């Protein structure tokens, strides 16, 4: 059983932090937070060609995280692989003892740095959850028997502030029906939105709320009412974060993240937190410190 699964099952309010695989082969910067924060957080999460920008493979990165003595979570995107490649990637992860897998559709290729690449989406995220569940039961998606069934702890994404909400709830319902173990939300700044979403979901998968240190550009866009994201950064919050120096915005952003983290935990608004702080170890450490974790 992964530590994440154990922590969620035990109501231990796990913290998962996101690290950034390099665009290259030097993993030092990616591993810095792993070295400094291991023991204080439950798992280190590794995006899969995030925003359709090519980076080092999550399974390889997960092995490096394990070698550093910590627990990884890999993301697996439907964008870049057909069903054969997805399944062999899952087997590869399992063989290395990686259980936490976050299954995502994946941002479209036009959002990234290889806009002419062929988008795959042979499976969607619901179907990929079913595939992974099937593999745990000992067979691949074509029904062929596996020698040794892998074990996974499977996650998917949920968007609390989706507008319209109906289609999002449909998707989450299907993810739940497919057997998802945990849902990681999009970033939330207005915690009443998280609370309302949770009530709509009812009982089911564990909810891990994303707390994100906003970028200076996002703060600026939010102030101008031009933030085009699947989450909102309320103008009052953006106003608080406003500063001339980006380093100052980051500092205030870290304080905001700490406050959100603390409140989510204190009010039991989620079962755990997913922390996004641009893969910066010191920033994460400061947030955990201020949140009293």
């Amino acid at each position, binding site marked *: 059983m992964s530590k994440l699964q154990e922590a969620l099952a035990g109501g231990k309010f796990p913290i998962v932090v996101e690290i950034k695989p390099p665009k290259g082969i030097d993993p030092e910067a990616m591993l810095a937070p792993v070295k400094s924060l291991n023991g204080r957080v439950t798992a280190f999460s590794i995006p899969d060609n995030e925003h359709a920008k090519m980076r080092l493979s999550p399974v390889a990165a997960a092995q490096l995280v394990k070698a550093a003595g910590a627990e990884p979570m890999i993301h697996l995107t*439907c*964008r870049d692989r057909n*069903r054969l490649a997805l399944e062999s990637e899952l087997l590869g992860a399992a063989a290395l003892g990686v259980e936490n897998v976050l299954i*995502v*559709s994946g*941002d*479209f290729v*036009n*959002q990234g740095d290889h806009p002419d690449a062929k*988008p795959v*989406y*042979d*499976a*969607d*995220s*619901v*179907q990929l959850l*079913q*595939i992974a569940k099937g593999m745990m039961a000992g067979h691949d*998606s074509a029904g062929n028997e596996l020698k040794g069934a892998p074990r996974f702890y499977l996650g998917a*994404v949920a*968007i609390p502030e*989706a*507008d*319209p909400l*109906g*289609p*999002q709830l*449909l*998707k989450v*319902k*299907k993810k739940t*029906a*497919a057997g998802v173990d945990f849902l990681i939300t*999009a970033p939330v700044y207005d915690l009443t939105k998280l609370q309302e979403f949770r009530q709509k979901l009812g009982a089911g998968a564990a909810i891990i709320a994303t707390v994100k240190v906003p970028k200076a550009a996002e703060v600026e866009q939010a102030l101008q009412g031009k933030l*085009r*994201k*699947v989450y909102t950064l309320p103008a009052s919050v953006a106003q608080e974060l406003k500063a001339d120096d980006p380093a100052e915005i980051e500092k205030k952003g870290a304080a905001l993240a700490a406050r959100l983290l603390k409140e989510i935990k204190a009010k039991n608004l989620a079962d755990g937190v997913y922390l996004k702080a641009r893969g910066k170890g010191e920033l994460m450490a400061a947030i955990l410190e201020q949140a009293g974790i």
Partner: protein
Amino acid sequence: MIIAERKPFAEIKAALEPYEKILIVGCGTCVAVCLAGGEKEVGLLASQIKLARGQNGKPVKVGEITVERQCDREFMQPLSDAVADYEIVLSTACGAGVQFLAAMPEMKPVIPALNTTFIGVNEEAGFYTERCRACHNCYLGTTGGICPVTMCPKGLLNGPCGGNLKGKCEVNPDNDCAWCAIYERLDRQGRLDLIDPILPLHPHARTTTPGAIIHPAYKRRYGGHE
């Protein structure tokens, strides 16, 4: 219908460079409707080629002929005679028509004048949009008549991705999110239960190219099994 658009003239001009006797063959069906390769467009292209050659002081003979359909042998017979006096044929048909033309006995080399783009509809004069990717397994009956394979750039079969914003698509905010549109229409029709079941993986084996279909009534003629 099949939608296509004319290749940039510079590309056509460069491909025709070595030739002096050019026959342009138009197609009177889909590409005529989408104003890319019908009789009128053949005439325009012929004038453009003559003008360009005139400016370069290079001689050229350009013939024009438009058939009803280049994807149907029935209409292509007259072309066998027409090509005799030419060195090269420039087809303004879709990719299927170009290939059918190029495979005719006695045919001269054929080059395409169009880029074939998609199966789509005539929204308004001069405005065409895609609707179908010919996926061999039509889902429209359960998706409210909106195609998830085509109208969602990711071809997702079980609901929206996380990227839509106020019902607009992550990939191109000018477009509606297909899954928001599917949901909205089925909701309006009181048929949301249709999209509750999880759709299985798409049977891509069926989409192996090149596809072939024999109408059931003709199975015996073409040696298919019933």
